[in-house]
Each structure stands twice: as C-alpha cells, then as structure tokens.
C-alpha cells in the first residue's frame, strides 16, 4: 500500500494548520499506521478511501480525528523518570521552604496527551509533600479527545504496565472492567483543559512547576519562541520549567536559564533566580 504523495501533503497541511506541527516527508509510514484505526472508526474501506472522501468533502469531525491521531504523543507513566525524581528530590523541598505560608503547589502538565504525565505528577506530589500540604495539577492538551480520555482517568492494562511500580498500581488505581481507573483521592487534585500552546493562553493562576516535555521538538523556531513566551507568563518568578531531554530554551528564549536539578536540567526565569541558589550549567 503506502500513502500517495498528494495524500501525505493534504494530511501534512491539515495538521500544520490545526496544530502548528510539521510532518516532514519520510513520515508517510507513520501517518498511514496512525490513520488505519481512524479510517476503521469512520467506516471507510481504507486510509486511501478515507482521505479521498475527506478531500472531496471536508468534515470537521473527521479532520479533528486526523489531527488527534497524528499529534498524540506516545507517553507513559513517569516517562523518562529523571524529571520526576528531580521534582521530588530537588524542587519540592525548595518550594516547601518558599511556600510555607500557602502550603499549596500548582503544577501544569502542558501537552498532557492521554493523561499519564499529570497523574504521575499527582503520585509524585502525593508521595513527597509533607502532611498538611495541598496541590493542584492542571493538564492541558490541544486534543479534545485526549482531554476527554484524561478526565475519565482510565488506562488500559498495557498502559498501567508501563512505568508504574506494582505498589503504585495497587495504591492509586482500581480495576474498572477492562481498565484501571485512578482513585478519587488522586483525581480530585487533577483537572484538565483544552489549550493551544501556540495561541495566546487564557489567564490562569501562575504555576510553581511546569512540565512541557517533547512538545517543542515538533515546532519551528519562531513557534518554539512563542510557546516559551506564553508559558513564562503563567510561571511563578521562582518556578521551574522541565523540558524534554532533546529540548532547550538556549538560543531560543534568553529569559530562561538552564539549571541542574538532580541528574537532569530544568529552566528558571533569569531575573528571579537568586545568585548561587541553583547550580548553573
């Protein structure tokens, strides 16, 4: 089979327009594999037939499904692990000192996909905050489908097998038919909203910690800069930003400074970092 060049161009243009994500040529195989289930869901005979009918007759619902299928990141609980370790070992102890009056932390999981990251953050804070502290976690994603999934807080067997310790699975999840559901005591700390990181963001109370991982890699430099500027406005002056391992603010946005956090790096707003407070890299 294989996707024709014109079908690929059509999909790439659609995804670019709706999400700013660039699908480079060479990803035809990936595009086709991701669209097979979409074609099946809408009752098309195959991917080619599905795309042909979508080009003949635009359909907002089908377009949204295409964008969702192609912009959903592969994710898992505690993905890459190091940022979560840095959060509990380095960031939380510092914030606990600085927020003694409020006893509350706010964390944003930007581009939270199917929800594993925000719930992993909830588990991390549940296990590392001193008694009497509270926390709010906001997950955001461009995909309404992903927001719906995340709010349901249900994960498949394969998903919970990945990244969670068995002890965490029995402590923070309960079986719900074929799925595992996050327990209410954790869910009540986590909320979701649809956000497009490249557009001006709504006013939200600022965050102490922001996880924005494996998002910037999809954007060109100008869009990366826009996203980082948008994010800075929602970050507390002494807040912490975590990016993906292959991402950086360096050479894109000088307002951030890279600092070591445990065995990984985080980014802080330049003006606010007191001299010597964190190891500069």
């Amino acid at each position: 089979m294989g996707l024709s060049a014109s079908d690929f161009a059509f999909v790439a243009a659609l995804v670019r327009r709706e999400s700013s994500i660039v699908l480079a040529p060479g990803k035809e195989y990936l595009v086709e594999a991701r669209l097979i289930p979409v074609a099946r869901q809408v009752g098309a005979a195959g991917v080619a037939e599905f795309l042909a009918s979508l080009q003949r007759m635009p359909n907002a619902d089908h377009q949204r499904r295409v964008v969702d299928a192609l912009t959903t990141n592969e994710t898992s609980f505690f993905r890459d692990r190091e940022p979560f370790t840095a959060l509990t070992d380095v960031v939380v102890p510092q914030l606990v000192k600085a927020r003694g009056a409020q006893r509350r932390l706010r964390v944003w999981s930007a581009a939270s996909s199917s929800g594993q990251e925000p719930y992993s953050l909830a588990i991390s804070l549940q296990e590392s905050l001193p008694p009497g502290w509270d926390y709010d976690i906001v997950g955001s994603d461009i995909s309404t489908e992903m927001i719906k999934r995340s709010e349901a807080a249900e994960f498949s067997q394969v998903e919970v097998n990945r990244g969670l310790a068995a002890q965490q699975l029995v402590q923070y999840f309960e079986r719900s038919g074929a799925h595992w559901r996050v327990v209410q005591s954790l869910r009540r700390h986590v909320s979701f909203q649809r956000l497009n990181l490249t557009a001006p963001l709504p006013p939200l109370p600022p965050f102490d910690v922001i996880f924005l991982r494996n998002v910037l890699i999809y954007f060109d430099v100008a869009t990366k800069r826009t996203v980082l500027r948008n994010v800075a406005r929602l970050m507390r002056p002494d807040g912490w930003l975590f990016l993906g391992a292959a991402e950086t603010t360096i050479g894109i946005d000088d307002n951030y400074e890279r600092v070591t956090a445990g065995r990984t790096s985080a980014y802080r707003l330049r003006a606010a970092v007191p001299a010597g407070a964190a190891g500069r890299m």
Partner: protein
Amino acid sequence: MLAIIIDDSRAMRLILRRIIAKIGFDAVEAGDGQAALDTIAELTEPPQLALVDWNMPVMNGLEFVTRARKDPRLRDMTLVMVTTESEQSQIVRALAAGAHEYVIKPFTEDSMIDKLALLGLTPTGANP
C-alpha cells in the same frame, strides 16, 4: 548476568528471553516452580533475576516466590511475577509473598524493560 525464566509456555519463555537479552541477561528456563528450584540448586551461583508465571503445573509461581523468599541462598534474587492474573488482590498477594515487581500479561517489550529499570536492572548493567 543470569536470569531464570519460569513459565509453562515455551513461546512466553522465548519472548522473555529475547527481551532481557537486550539488557544483558543470559537465561536458564524452567516450566514450573519445582523445576525452577531444581535448576537453581544445580547452579554454582543463583540467578540475579527470576521472571515467574503464576499458573503453572506442579508448582505455581506464588508458591515458588514464597519458597524463594525463605531460601537464604536466594536472598539477592530479584523476583518479578509475569502473569495474566490481574486482580488487584492477586498483585497484593504476590507482593506480600515477596515479589519485587509485577508485570501483567499481555505486556509489551517496552513495559517489561521499564519494569526492570524500576528495579535498577538497566541496559548498562547498573545493579542496585
């Protein structure tokens, strides 16, 4: 590094063998818990890792884990249940019996490697 793979399905043993080879483990195999105890008894050094199915003939995996935990010689062996038993209560039972981790079938290669990484068993061979 040596592991023992205990499962009555040869296909499952092969899948597990292929996966742990990627993080540097050789493996011996056994088709049930008793056969595993016999195999381990003949080794000059016990395996560092045991991947243990639950439902097997002769001696099931829970029984194997319970016995292995009581054997001082196997004190340092990491025990991972790999089973289709997937009720929360069963996971709790296995952990209480001494299993260190629990992987539910079906599992993907990534999820198995992730679980072993949680136990400090990584491709670089860093051991806890």
